[in-house]
């Protein structure tokens, strides 16, 4: 398409789009640092005349975002580690061991990927209330410590590791289990990082599930806390934007650092179609 549009046209079109994409973030940051009287000014004030960091402390005073942050961190970290462990073990079995029922089990698991998670909401809620787990960390974490998609992704990666490597390790006196951790896992690092990052993003941003299985404020994760905050903060948009910033910024930082892996993971999930 190069000759259809001139270079400068391409830049202008992309720049307009980029402004549209960035504007909400810029507006969020800008509002979060404004003094209350500038928030509703018309025409809008783009750059606050004074950086009003108090909005953040005030938001923290209204709702325990520090607590929400810790909750989100706990949930994200543990469910990510859990998913990595279950995924590594399962992917190894599916890629390196020949066993009865392998294809059936694998097909059933792949089949479950077709079922939208929303459908599982009600029975899972019932299961958790039977376990007495409603309004606990377990409820936020345990159901999310395994993922068929992750198993599938890692299995594909494991299948690409030459068989001779496991032969060599065996001859070298390495048991299968140690081989998995000493050789396969270090080799699969890029794939594992991708799996972990997609998991972290999903876990951090998850809303419907934590909304349903938690009641007490102490167990709210950031998105749930933020959603409740819209009622608590009323129409104080500078506080809402400060709170939103606290939710959004950690993932933005993560994205800027690990961009390569995240985009590769998304692209890979797309090419699987």
């Amino acid at each position, binding site marked *: 398409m190069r000759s259809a549009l001139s270079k400068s046209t391409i830049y202008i079109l992309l720049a307009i789009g980029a402004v549209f994409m960035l504007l909400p973030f810029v507006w969020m940051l800008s509002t979060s640092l404004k003094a209350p009287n500038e928030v509703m000014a018309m025409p809008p004030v783009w750059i606050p005349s004074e950086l009003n960091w108090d909005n953040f402390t005030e938001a923290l005073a209204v709702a325990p975002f520090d607590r929400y942050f810790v909750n989100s961190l706990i949930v994200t970290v543990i469910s990510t580690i859990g998913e990595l462990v279950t995924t590594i073990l399962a992917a190894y079995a599916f890629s390196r061991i020949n066993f009865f029922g392998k294809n059936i089990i694998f097909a059933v698991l792949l089949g479950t990927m077709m079922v939208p998670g929303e459908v599982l909401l009600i029975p899972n809620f019932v299961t958790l209330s039977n376990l007495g787990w409603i309004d606990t960390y377990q409820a936020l974490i345990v159901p999310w410590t395994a993922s068929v998609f992750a198993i599938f992704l890692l299995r594909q990666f494991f299948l690409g590791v*030459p068989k*001779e*490597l496991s*032969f*060599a*390790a*065996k*001859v*070298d*006196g*390495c*048991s299968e289990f*140690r081989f998995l951790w000493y*050789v396969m896992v*270090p*080799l699969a*690092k890029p794939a594992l990082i991708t799996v972990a990052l997609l998991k972290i993003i999903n876990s951090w941003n998850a809303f419907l599930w934590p909304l349903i299985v938690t009641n007490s404020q102490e167990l709210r994760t950031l998105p749930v806390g933020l959603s409740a905050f819209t009622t608590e903060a009323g129409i104080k948009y500078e506080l809402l934007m400060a709170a939103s910033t606290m939710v959004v910024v950690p993932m933005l930082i993560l994205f800027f650092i690990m961009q390569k892996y995240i985009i590769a993971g998304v692209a890979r999930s797309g090419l699987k179609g």
Partner: protein
Amino acid sequence: MDVHLDQLTMQFNDTTAVDSITTTIKDGELVSLLGPSGCGKSTTLMLLSGLYKPTAGDIYFGDEKVTTMDAEKRGIGMVFQNYALYPHLSVLKNIMFPLKMQKVPKKEAIQQVMEMAKLVQIDHLLDRKPAQLSGGQQQRVAIARALVKKPKLLLLDEPLSNLDARLRLEMREEIRRIQQEVGITAVFVTHDQEEALSISDRVMLMNNGVLQQENAPQQMYRKPENIFAASFLGNPPINFLTLHKTENNTYVIQGSSQTLELPSMKWQTHEAFQMGLRPEDLYTVPEEEGLFSGEIIHMETIGRDTLIRLQLGDVTVRALVDPKSRLRVGDRCSLAIEPQEVHYFDPKTGERLRGGNDNDAQANLEKHA
């Protein structure tokens, strides 16, 4: 340590990859397992390593029966065709890996690694990752890793076939040197006859899972025990002529009208047999002295040799001739061979009847007009 195989058999579903092999590999010996791809040589090696378990038969390391013992407990070293180095570990850590598995104290382990690295001459590359090494260097690392734990048996699975021709020659000699220096019993799998014949004390030739012949290299070449052995070894390959009896001691070459007379011998009760003639044993002679003659349809000179292809009716015969001879494509040419160089085989069983360096092979071959 002697390694003894007793009716070793391996089946995959319906195919028998290794068919009842019985043999003994002597202590300190380098034995080649030679054969075409799919002949079962690699499977035999996998059985020796313990990575595969046989469906029947037994393996003994010395007096110990190891048939069902797992690979990690057999105390063997193994080198693979694709080197199978751990890509994420440095050369040092690759070589140290087996020692780490044995929980050898780090200081001692590093010392042993250094010794081994010196032996295979890669002590200047210890910090590198495998991807930063050439194929030959990677193979040296693989050998060091296999030997570092002082195994009782070294297994090499086509270790040279990923290398280019020149390097292959060099590494071949290196493997031999290292094996002799360490004095380890070694089994070397290859599909390359030249490699097998040059490197080993003894060659075991396999086909379709069956051990065809085991001999010292030269002996196998000089005295193939069946058609397969004769045809697998030798480059350019051996010529086969099928002979049919017409009358007493007179035979016609199948596919041509030429006949030849053979002296009477006890194995000549056969109505037909196959005669194997190595190209390098044939030589040109004046028409009347030749065993057979034909038209030269192709000539090529490779280095010091001139290879001609002779058309006799429907069959072609390859021969290496004196490059100084003035032969040209289209010429008629007669070839002869010393009687003791002729190999005779039964066409039905493929078994050797007589020939090669048999002492009684003083048959007088003459062309019969």
